[in-house]
């Protein structure tokens, strides 16, 4: 009987640190190879509760006033690689407003701020790993990575799972976005099938008629497995 361990990532399913087309990696990606660790405390992790960190599941209103833009519902399920639900996972969210501007001091994009949109939320998964929030579809915005560079519409996700090594920070994209093919951050994931999993699915069943469209975005966190093959039966 071996101690529970993380499974290795499938080749190409995660981006490398050094991404030639993403300029900010040039002086920030480590040169040395990573040192393999037999985790100890990393197999445990923080536990959060809505008592300490109240949920903020509706980003589309501020003090009772509706933000401008296309209201959307985003929902999905958080599991581990063996499809076991991750219950009680803390999900933090942040995004640009409908005009492509962040409520952030350092965002200098020439696009309007919306006093009714702060663009930050926090939700927890239920016993089945499900989450749901309401927001405004974020706009695309330019960045200075290369000439005429634009980020595709995206929502930032930060997740805490059952252990420290399950921690994930990622971005959710929207189907059919022509900027995905041009985006060095999205394209940093080598395997096209892997990066496609960052694109939410339009889901008519999630929409609320006469009120909001719906997108489904499922996430998979690293889990601890009794042996590297246990989950593959």
């Amino acid at each position, binding site marked *: 009987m071996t101690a529970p361990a993380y499974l290795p990532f499938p080749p190409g399913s995660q981006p490398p640190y050094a*991404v030639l087309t993403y300029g900010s990696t040039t002086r920030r990606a480590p040169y040395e190879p990573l040192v393999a660790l037999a985790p100890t405390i990393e197999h445990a992790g923080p536990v959060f509760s809505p008592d300490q960190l109240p949920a903020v599941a509706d980003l589309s209103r501020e003090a009772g006033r509706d933000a401008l833009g296309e209201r959307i519902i985003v929902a999905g399920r958080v599991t581990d690689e063996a499809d076991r639900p991750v219950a009680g996972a803390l999900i933090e969210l942040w995004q640009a407003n409908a005009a492509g501007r962040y409520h952030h001091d350092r965002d200098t994009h020439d696009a309007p701020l919306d006093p009714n949109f702060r663009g930050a939320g926090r939700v927890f998964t239920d016993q089945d790993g499900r989450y749901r929030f309401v927001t405004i579809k974020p706009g695309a915005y330019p960045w200075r990575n290369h000439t005429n560079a634009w980020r595709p519409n995206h929502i930032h996700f930060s997740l805490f799972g059952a252990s420290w090594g399950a921690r994930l920070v990622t971005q959710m994209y929207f189907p059919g976005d022509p900027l995905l093919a041009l985006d060095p951050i999205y394209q940093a994931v080598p395997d096209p099938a892997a990066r496609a999993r960052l694109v939410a699915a339009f889901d008519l069943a999630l929409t609320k008629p006469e009120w909001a469209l719906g997108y489904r975005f499922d996430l998979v966190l690293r889990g601890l497995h009794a042996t590297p093959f246990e989950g593959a039966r």
Partner: protein
Amino acid sequence: MSAKMRPVTPSQTIGPFWHALAEPALADLTRAGATGPRLALAGRILDGDGAPVGDACVELWQATPAASPAFPGWGRCATAADGGFAFTTLAPDPAAPYLAIAIFARGLVKPLWTRVYFADTGDALLAALPAARRATLLARPDAAGWRWDVRLQGEDETVFLKL
């Protein structure tokens, strides 16, 4: 891998505009009234040119003392313009005198995992490293508590871990 297995969602950068998550109180793990020996940890995050990384998110996790309503065991600190971060926490068990650290930033498409030690325990990780690299994981005491600088790349590059 069988069809039933689901690959882990790819990581993406935290970007430069993540600070809605950066409540300053989260860097003080004793804020809810935790009691016990305190530990102050401060340092700077520097890039491959030695320039400060002023938009990083530094997170720590410790398994000891055990988490409780008074002690979350987890903290988060946004780096300042000079790359500086500072945590106040409880000292971990002397038998395992280290904290787990994760660093997120613009230009990091996935987290950097590492540890900071308060003694050279000679545990499996430290023992396997050449002395110069081992030193990058060791905080040193100073007047304010403990000092630990992180170099993301190049000369004196910090040891980063594969979990």
